[in-house]
Every structure is written in C-alpha cells, then in structure tokens.
C-alpha cells in the first residue's frame, strides 16, 4: 500500500462517513456542516486524480458558495430547531432491493467495462491545458457559459426579489 493509497482511503472514509452523517443527522444545520466535510473529501479525491482545477473549483464553488447558500437557506426558515426531520426508516425491503440492484449494476459496470484509457504522463497542472482548450476548441462553450450565467443571474434575482404588488 503506497502513500497515495493511504491518502485515498483517508479521503474516501471522510467523504462516505460525513455523507452518512449528513443523511442521518437529526438537526438540519448539523447536516449542512457535515456536508462541508463531504465536499472537502471529494475535493481531495480530485487532487489524487490529478484534476487540480476541478479540485479548486470544488473548494471555491461548492464549499465556498453552495454550502453557504445552503446554510442561508436553512437559516431563512423561521424555526430551524423546531422542525422535526423524519429520519425513521420506512419501506425498508423495497429500498434495499432498489438500491442493491442499482449498486450491483454500477459496480458490475465499473469492474467489467473496458474504460478508455490513454497512456501519458500526468500533467503538472491541468489549468493551463484547460485554458488553451477553452480559448480554441471550446470557445463556443466558454461564451455560452457567460450567457448561461447571465440568465442564471437574471432568473435568480427575479425569483428572490420581493414584489411590491
């Protein structure tokens, strides 16, 4: 077991463990905070995959943005602690069958498929290559993203704005 394996399992356990706590926690604010560790663990996994840009995006956007938004969303509701969150288990047999089936499909798919892999050295950083691609082959995607963000901005403001009617 190399040092990379150790780090991988460390992050994997962090991700799965805190993910479990997110789902089972009785307090919604605690859930949101556990999500922080889940997202952080995923960022660590990205780093191990040499996807450094995605890891940074994960930290900046998910941990720095979406999680904060989530917390605000929770705090906007009037009675946070009074709300009873149902964490009891119902329909346990169909759920086990359903998730087990899905898990079986995904795991067998993971193991049995010849995933396309191209030999090559890991780049020192992916950001540079990404920049080149975004400015040439995917320039349309880049500009369309700007339009998407503009629409998101207008739409978000439109929904959140208080009407004086």
């Amino acid at each position: 077991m190399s040092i990379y394996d150790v780090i991988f399992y460390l992050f994997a356990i962090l991700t799965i463990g805190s993910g479990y706590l997110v789902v089972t926690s009785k307090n919604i604010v605690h859930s949101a905070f556990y999500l922080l560790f889940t997202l952080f663990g995923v960022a660590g996994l990205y780093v191990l995959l040499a996807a450094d840009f995605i890891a940074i995006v994960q930290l900046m956007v998910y941990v720095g943005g979406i999680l904060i938004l989530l917390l605000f969303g929770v705090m906007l509701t009037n009675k946070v602690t009074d709300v009873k969150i149902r964490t009891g288990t119902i329909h346990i047999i169909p759920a086990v069958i359903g998730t087990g089936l899905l898990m079986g499909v995904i795991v067998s798919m993971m193991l049995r498929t010849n995933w396309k892999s191209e030999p090559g050295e890991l780049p020192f950083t992916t950001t540079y290559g990404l920049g080149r691609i975004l400015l040439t082959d995917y320039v349309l995607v880049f500009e369309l993203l700007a339009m998407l963000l503009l629409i998101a901005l207008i739409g978000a403001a439109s929904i959140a704005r208080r009407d004086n009617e």
Partner: protein
Amino acid sequence: MINEILNSITFIYPELAVSIFLLIIVLVDLVFHKDKKYIPYISLAGLVITGILVLNQIGITHFAFVPQLSAVKKYGMMTIDPFGSYFKLLVVVTSILIIFFTIASEEVIDLKERLGEFHALIYGMILGMLVMISASDLILIYLSLELLSLSSYVLAGFLKLRERSSEASLKYVIYGSVSSGLMLFGISIIYGLTGSTNLYVINSLIQGPQINLFTLSFSSILMFVGIGYKISAAPFHFWTPDVYEGAPISITAYLSVASKAAGFALLIRFIQTGFTSFISEDGYWTLIAVFDWQALLIAISILTMTLGNFSALWQDNLKRMLAYSSIAHAGYILLGIAVLSNQGLIAVLIYFFVYMLMNIGAFYVVMLISNKTGSENIDDYDGLGAKAPFLGVALAIFLISLTGLPPTAGFIAKLYLFIALIDANMIVVAIIALLNTVVSLYYYVRVLKHMYLTKSEREQENITPSIGSLVYLLVLLIPILFFGIYFTPIVEFARSCVSLLGI
C-alpha cells in the same frame, strides 16, 4: 486555428442574433427603467431577424467549430443541416407567435415592471433551443439543455404571487435537476467508454468490439432520461400537468410546443448521428447493433400516449387537460422516430408544424376566455358557443385538429404518421395508436359538448375578442384548414428538410 473559429461564426448567425438581442433587451430594460412597452417589439424584431437568418441557412450542410487540437479534425461541435434549420425555424416561428400571445395575455400585461426579465428569459430559452437543435457534442448538448431548463424554471414560476405558479416552478426544478443529473451521469459513462464527447466520433468508436454493451445501454438509457424529461415522455412526465397548470398560460403554450420540439430534435440527432451505421436507399436507418432503440422507443411511446390520453379523460381544468393531451401527442411523435426511417422523420416534421398551429391556437382561446372569466375550468365553458361564437368555432376547429379528424391539418399529420408505421410493417403499433386517437376524441369532444349543448347556469356577458386576437386566430386557423385540404407544400418542405448531416 483562429481562422476556423472565425469561419464557424458565419454558420451560427441565428444563435448570434439571439444572443445579441438578449443583451439588447437586458440593456434596454436597464436604461429605460420606466417605460417597458417597447420591449415586446424589440424581441419581435430580434426574432424576425433570426428567422431570416435561419431561412438563409436552410440549404446549408456544414460543420461548425471543428476542434483543432484533437486528433480527429473532421467533426464539429455544431452541425448545420436542413433538419436542424427546419426545427430552428419552427422554434423561431413559435417564439414569434408566443410574443404576440403575451401581448394579449392579461397575466403578462400585469407584470409591468418585470416585463424586461420575462422577455430576457424567453430569449434565454430560445438560445438554448437553437444551440440544442444543432449541437453534436455532448458538452454542448448538456450546456444548452441547462440554458433552456434554467430559463423555463424561472418562467414557470414567474407569477410569484400565485401559489400554483410557485409550486409549478419548484416541481419543475426538482424533476429537472434529477433528470439532468442522470443525463450527466450518462454522458460521463459514454465519455469513459469512448474518450470522446462528439457524437460522430462516438458513432465510429462504438462499432469497435471492445465496447461493453451493457455499459453502453445503461448510459443510453440515462441519456434518454434527460431528453425524455424535456419531451415529457411517459415515466418522466410527472412534472408536466402541474407545471402546465401553474405556469402563466403563454409559457405553458411555449413549453408544450417549442421546448418539446427542441427536445425531439435532440433525440433524433442523438440517435441518428450517434447510433446509425447507414441509411438504405428507401430511407430506413440501420442502427449499430449495440442498443435496441426501436424497442425502447416503441415501449415508451405506447406508454406515453396511453397514459396521456387516459389521464386527460378526467380533467376538468382545460389547461391541465391540454397538458395531458400534449403528453399524448409526444407519444405519437415518438412513434414517428421509432420507425427509424426518413419516412417517419418526415411524419415527425409535419406533425410538429401542425401541432404548433393547433396547440398554440387552443391555448390562445383558453387564454382569451380566462382573461374574461378568470378561470380555466370546463364548467365555465358552458354555453360559450352562443356567447362567443367566433371563439367557440375557433376552439372547436383546434380541438378537432388535435384529435386528428379531417378536414383539418391534424388529420394530415396523423395520416403521414400512420403511413410511415404501416410502411415499416408496424401494424400492431399503428392499431394501438389509432385506438388512442379514439380515446382522445372523447375528451376533446367533451369540451365541445360543454360549449354548445350545455346551458350556462350563470348569466355572463358576451365575450368579444379584439381585432388583434381575431387576426391572430385567423393566422392559425387558415393554415390548419388550408393544409388540411391542400397539404403538398408542407409535405414537400418537410421532405426537403429531412436530411441530417450524415456519417
């Protein structure tokens, strides 16, 4: 490299025009803060220009944005072909009709301050649809799908003060994000299998022996979930009735025609460029034997039309009934794709043209009546035939056309569909579709019965539509009746637009 990009820009003028006008609308909304009454006209002007640009493209077959850094320098991210241009034209015409629709709709007139946003978001939808129709790269497909979805989520809940509208928006967002997440999963699996996001490259790679069929089928189904949600095909249709009922009626009409058309265009392009190995002389597509698209499509379409039609039987809200009817129509159109032939494709193209006219027309009449009565309930249509003779007749013709009876264009649309089915020896499926049409007759005629045979219990004043509404309805009615009798022009036009940029 830069030359290629500059060259590609000449092929995306319609998309460019839409983007520029989107920015102009936002800018006008900003600068002329007080006066919003010019905005609909600006967006109309933009659409007319876009329409002309699309018309200019109609014969062109070309790739745009061909990647220069990758190994395969043949296939672009966008495909400009007659098939795409047909659907783009359809989307633009629908959008023009919808802008006129909103000018007459009280719900939208009441928005006043927020009119700028409303049009900006409609433009966001148009941009998403135009890109989606000609996208041949999975990343672009996903991005345009999101652009379309994001704008329509907000538009569905645009009447914030109405509870149903907010509920519609919320349901739409939840269903939408689940299905787009599943689609993204499918995309990532396909990328993992082939190492490419371009549909043409994927087509050539999945013919290889090392492709795992199970994985590919799984990812294809996931892709279909994402598209099936947009076209509201059966197991993914749960959002449709609620959203259609809660959204502003102009947006309902728009979602039921334009965004469905774009979804179908995407589905056809995905199957045709991604999975077809060759097209025979008589126009039948031979798919690569990796995934049985035909079986999936037939099953889904029968399920969709049956569920749609039978659920529509019990609806008392006309908007909701039309929602279920649009689900049923999606089922018919899916059959046209399931034939997997150019014949079927022609039927789909004709069907969409006719569907646009009759569906927008039906919604328009519903809107005019709800402007006056404030309700879409079927009981409020009692005795309408006497109170508003023209509206009654117009709605009757739209509904008869939706059923598919002669002498309306709806009959021609169904006729070509059944011809394509019988040509492909899919007799059983054709019979099921025919039986479904009979079922649909019941709920369409039920509205007619309320309009003409039931006497209203309440005293209501006569509804006289304005001149503009009269002209609008005539613009929709005349083609429906005209093409119902003399249908060669649309058939010829559809036939000339059937070719996709092939392998």
